[in-house]
């Protein structure tokens, strides 16, 4: 899928979402308009869903439909419904996440708009997966694990639980619904054998992304008292964080002088390679691998910029 067609697919999805939102009443529609404006969904170049570090929310259903092949006369319609389902499911999560993280919107508008988006997501997937139990069991499990992940993340943020590797792994379950739209296409097409690799792909990609962003956000998270798994891996504890200046210096030493940044980056890159391996197991179109390669390039660029800055002081001597 070329960049040009990515843009057109995104436009198609956003147009469809606007049509669906047109069926909302004025109050719910107002909440949708505020969401759309806040996320700048209509800034379509390159667009909300096509940032190089965004998940391939719209691309995955497209690749899944291409993988299912021309044997399906309705493949284009299935792909279009799956893309909109993916976007609606994602926005359902975004509304909840922004409310929990940043208190954006008030509770009732959040709950009801989020419900409306999940309903749209589900209705579209009914059209793709039909009543096949294999899909709906997967659907229920993915959203239940998402909910558990979100609640654990909340508890971690509020200091009611402590980040460790096991907690980090559970939090990563929040990305599981990303696999539902492509899974619907494959279950419809009898390609159930590809589903384990699809789960691996989503798991590795989301973990890679989280490690990278927590690395970039480390200082800001520490200042906010949000001791992420990356920060804890740098040896900072709740007690240590009570001295902000000392913990900041410890974080910087651990990240830049003692190999912490590179170690986390190595793990993030390893996860990206595992996602690529899963992509190959699914025999996805080459665009999937190109997307992962591009992500890896961006991560390498970021890593080099950080250490260019670290060593720049030596140049001036």
């Amino acid at each position, binding site marked *: 899928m070329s960049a040009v067609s990515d843009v057109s697919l995104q436009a198609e999805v956003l147009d469809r979402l606007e049509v669906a939102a047109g069926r909302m009443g004025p109050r719910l529609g107002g909440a949708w308009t505020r969401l759309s404006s806040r996320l700048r969904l209509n800034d379509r170049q390159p667009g909300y869903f096509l940032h190089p570090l965004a998940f391939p929310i719209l691309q995955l259903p497209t690749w899944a439909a291409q993988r299912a092949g021309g044997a399906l006369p309705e493949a284009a319609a299935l792909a279009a419904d799956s893309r909109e389902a993916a976007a609606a499911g994602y926005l359902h999560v975004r509304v909840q996440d922004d409310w929990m993280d940043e208190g954006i919107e008030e509770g009732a508008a959040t709950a009801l708009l989020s419900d409306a988006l999940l309903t749209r997501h589900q209705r579209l997937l009914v059209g793709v997966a039909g009543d096949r139990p294999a899909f709906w069991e997967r659907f229920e499990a993915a959203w239940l694990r998402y909910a558990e992940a979100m609640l654990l993340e909340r508890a971690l943020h509020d200091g009611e639980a402590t980040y460790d590797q096991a907690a980090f792994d559970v939090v990563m379950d929040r990305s599981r619904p990303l696999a539902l739209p492509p899974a619907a296409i494959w279950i419809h097409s009898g390609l159930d054998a590809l589903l384990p690799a699809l789960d691996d792909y989503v798991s590795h990609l989301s973990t890679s*992304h989280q490690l990278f962003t927590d690395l970039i956000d480390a*200082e800001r998270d520490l200042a906010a008292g949000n001791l992420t798994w990356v920060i804890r891996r740098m040896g900072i504890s709740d007690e240590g964080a009570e001295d902000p200046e000392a913990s900041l210096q410890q974080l910087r030493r651990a990240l830049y002088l003692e190999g912490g940044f590179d170690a986390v980056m190595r793990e993030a890159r390893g996860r990206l390679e595992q996602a690529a391996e899963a992509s190959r197991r699914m025999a996805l179109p080459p665009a999937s691998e190109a997307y992962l390669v591009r992500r890896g390039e961006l991560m390498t660029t*970021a890593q080099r910029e950080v250490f260019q800055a670290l*060593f720049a002081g*030596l140049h001036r001597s």
Partner: protein
Amino acid sequence: MSDKSQEEVIGRAVIDPDFRDRLLKDPEATIKAEGYTVSAEFINQLKDMDTDAAMAAASNLDGAFAQRKAAT
């Protein structure tokens, strides 16, 4: 002191994480093992790196990737 060697050390340290790790942990031994020629002052600077610039760069990345929350 060899400026060329110093520049080579810095350039390699930026792009080669394994070399960077060894260099920051033990500058003298790493530079000697790799055959570079640098000044004692350069070695001392490596032993006393200022991490503020790196953190500032990470903060700039935060801006550059501000949209990364987009669709994740």
